[in-house]
């Protein structure tokens, strides 16, 4: 039971990392990305291949995974700079599916639908499963902390201000003297890199990855986490991811207690509970449980200007 709790904590933390990545793209710069799981797959596969085929250490694998995801994110952004909203959503959705199908068919590289097994985990051979899970949780929590700091710095900076401006009006941002395109590509690359890190962390945790793990549903869970927690707020991203995973897991035990439904109906019931929860939040707390901050200033005026609300950071 303790191992189970540790394991869902690890998964929740990995989701939180992905939600932070999405918050850079969507929450801050307003760039819809329904292809998150594609970046996660690139990170996971790169890290898995670097550590299994090339036998390099896990940190090198993770770093390679992040870099690969950054590159693929930048590339995806470059080909979609003129797209917004629904159009961007469709293309990014297609991107993730493309990655998945490539992973299923390029057997020489990815071992196809059989997936890659035996991906090393830190000290997995010498530790008991309980110790391994505890160690891994410590590692992912530290990395989550690091990613959180990076995302906060981005959010509260002149760089983040330009991203916020792009979210509101990407034409006027040009009149402000900023090349919006360069900022969009950077936001996409960073977000994709963070999601890639999450993918790598998942691969080294479970020791096995296959194309059918990287389905669009994962992207939706992450998006849901951010909506629930609060779009544009990094703390919200973490809180939302934790809630989504807890709801998904706890209903695993609660639903079978409902009489007269089959296990298949029970599985569907869990999704319904999650969706209903989302609808309730969107109806009563549109901005999420931890709403976006009122402003993101790093320097405040000296004199106590009337109308300027106190710091909320």
């Amino acid at each position, binding site marked *: 039971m303790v191992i189970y709790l540790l394991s869902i904590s690890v998964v929740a933390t990995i989701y939180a990392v992905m939600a932070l990545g999405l918050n850079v793209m969507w929450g801050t710069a307003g760039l819809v990305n329904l292809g998150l799981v594609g970046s996660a797959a690139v990170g996971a596969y790169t890290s898995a291949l670097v550590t299994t085929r090339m036998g390099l250490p896990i940190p090198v694998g993770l770093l390679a995974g992040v870099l690969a995801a950054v590159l693929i994110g930048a590339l995806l952004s470059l080909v979609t700079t003129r797209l917004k909203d629904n159009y961007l959503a469709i293309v990014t959705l297609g991107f993730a599916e493309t990655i998945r199908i490539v992973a299923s068919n390029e057997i020489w590289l990815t071992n196809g639908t059989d997936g890659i097994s035996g991906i090393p985990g830190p000290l997995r051979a010498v530790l008991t499963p309980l110790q391994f899970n505890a160690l891994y949780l410590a590692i992912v929590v530290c990395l989550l902390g690091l990613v959180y700091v990076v995302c906060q710095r981005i959010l509260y900076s002149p760089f983040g201000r330009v991203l916020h401006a792009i979210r509101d009006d990407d034409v006027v*941002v040009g*009149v402000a003297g900023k090349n919006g395109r360069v900022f969009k590509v950077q936001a996409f690359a960073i977000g994709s890199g963070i999601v890639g890190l999450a993918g790598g962390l998942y691969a080294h945790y479970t020791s096995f990855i296959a194309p059918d793990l990287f389905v669009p549903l994962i992207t939706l869970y992450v998006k849901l986490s951010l909506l629930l927690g609060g779009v544009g707020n990094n703390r919200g991203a973490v809180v939302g991811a934790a809630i989504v995973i807890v709801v998904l897991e706890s209903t695993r035990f609660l639903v079978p207690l409902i009489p007269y439904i089959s296990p298949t109906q029970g599985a569907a019931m869990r999704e319904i509970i999650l969706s209903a929860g989302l609808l309730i939040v969107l109806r009563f707390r549109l901005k999420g449980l931890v709403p976006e901050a009122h402003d993101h200033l790093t320097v405040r005026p000296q004199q106590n200007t009337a109308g300027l609300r106190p710091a909320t950071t």
Partner: protein
Amino acid sequence: MLEISGVTRRFGGVQALSGVDLTISPGGITGMIGPNGAGKTTLFNCISGILPISGGEIRFLGQRIDGLRPDQISRRGLVRTFQIARGFPRLTVLESLLLYGADQPGESLAAALIRTRASIRREEALVEKACKLAERLKLSHVLGNKASDLSGGQKKLLEIGRAMMRDPQMLLLDEPMAGVNPSLIRDIGDRLISIAEDGVTIVLIEHQMDLIARLCQHVIVLADGRRMIEGTFDAVAGNTEVQNAYMGARR
């Protein structure tokens, strides 16, 4: 200062600009008037790089600027505002002003992550500048409000303030007084005069003739996508062609 020669712009079958030739010399406020659909806003969009031109050339301070991106043109000191106030509803007034600040090293990703001293110092300077500007434009009391909370007139003032944050050499103002109440119009007019006195060259699209008469030393009339006539307000207003096309006959 700004030389426009033979500029054309087509939207499908509509010829919005059919060979505009005009020159704006440095200093003062130049009025740009003309009937709806004359091509005034299209011309602004072409000058500021938001719309590509179909033909002709545009020079600013002697250098070609047609074909440049809007951000490159703004960085050269030519900044515009929009007819229907556009901007950043989810940024606060102060943030909107800071956004327009030039030379902020903190806009690079690396500097944002490290929080370099240079970026913090620049931010302090920009905040001070924004506060002074806000005072001048009577926006001090709403600095911390979201831009979407402002009244129509305040949004217009914010547009001017944002543009001023870049220390422009030339300002293109697209109907800065449309939808603004009479006392505020007077205010905005006074601000524009004081901005022009600071050495900023202003080009102003406006439909209220008494304002044009009060503010503008020079007036250009556009009609059917080309320059019809230019000169002092009195000369232009006395022209029968202009009266027929735009102002309506005077009794």
